[in-house]
């Protein structure tokens, strides 16, 4: 049994490593839905994403030419961003009001 601190630090480091380093080795083939859409033909109805020009579009960092760094930075930002958003959201959700018991 790991103590709380060790467990969460380990989980977070594993996530950072996967998104920041291992992601470079991910397959760039189309995913299941995309592939099916290509084969059948309805991929043609896809429109470009309304926010396709965001800085981290398609898990690359704009202005960073090195591919390994580009995807790595995007992954690390994603992990940190998700940690902040999910961390705050679940903390608020779990907070029990003192007076009224749900």
């Amino acid at each position, binding site marked *: *049994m*790991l103590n*709380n601190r060790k*467990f*969460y630090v*380990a*989980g*977070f480091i*594993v*996530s950072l490593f*996967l*998104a920041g380093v*291992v*992601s470079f080795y*991910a*397959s*760039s*083939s*189309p*995913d*299941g*839905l995309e592939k*099916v*859409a290509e*084969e*059948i033909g*309805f991929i*043609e*109805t*896809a*429109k*470009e*994403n*309304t*926010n*396709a*020009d*965001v800085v981290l*579009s*398609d*898990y690359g960092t704009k202005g960073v030419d090195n591919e390994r760094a580009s*995807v790595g930075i*995007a*992954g690390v*930002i*994603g*992990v940190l*961003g*998700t*940690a902040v*958003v*999910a*961390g705050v*959201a*679940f*903390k608020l*959700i*779990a907070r*029990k009001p003192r007076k009224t018991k*749900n």
Partner: protein
Amino acid sequence: MHIPDGFLDVQTSVIFTGLSAAGVAVALKGARSQLDEKTAPLAGLTAVFIFAVQMLNFPVAAGTSGHLIGGALAAILVGPWAATLALTIVLLMQAFLFADGGLTALGASTFNMSIVGVWAGYGAFLLVRKILPKSKPSIPIAAAIGGFVSVPMAAISFTVQYAMGATATYSTTTVLGAMVGTHILIGIGEGLITGLTVSAVIASRSDLVYGWKNNAKSLEIRNA
């Protein structure tokens, strides 16, 4: 399985945005009564881990890749309500920060992954858990099967949306066959990752795993 803008018509996008909003509202209520100070951090970490692993597309067949959805995984780790919320947070981050998945299709994608993926995976997990011996090693096995089942179920859910309001006119049965066939393959990867992750968490902190705690508890008090 992130749907791009344009695949579905406006009406269908609106319907599924409404359904997802309702599903997330129910999940919020469920999570509020289930999560506490001890389990909330695991829900956060689960969202983070799923975001990271969703970046790791693995090859499944010639020219096709798949990645973890994580619905079953999240449900087993933190319970289905918190899982729906965790997946929804991941999808929101992906759509807004990384332009992965269309914004108008976000409701439909959320429905397929955060609701169908979570609940189909969790349902299959519960069924298998019931059949297997009530011991720790059964949990990762049931989790793997839950993960496996969740992916074709989400693919079927997309096909329903396609049938309801695709902008394209290719036959639904063709889409159904291709979606299910491809996603059974991807489901194998989902099952493996789900089983391995659950077994790692069980080995280090079984006290935190919803799908195990909740089983151990039902041995003492029968309130089914």
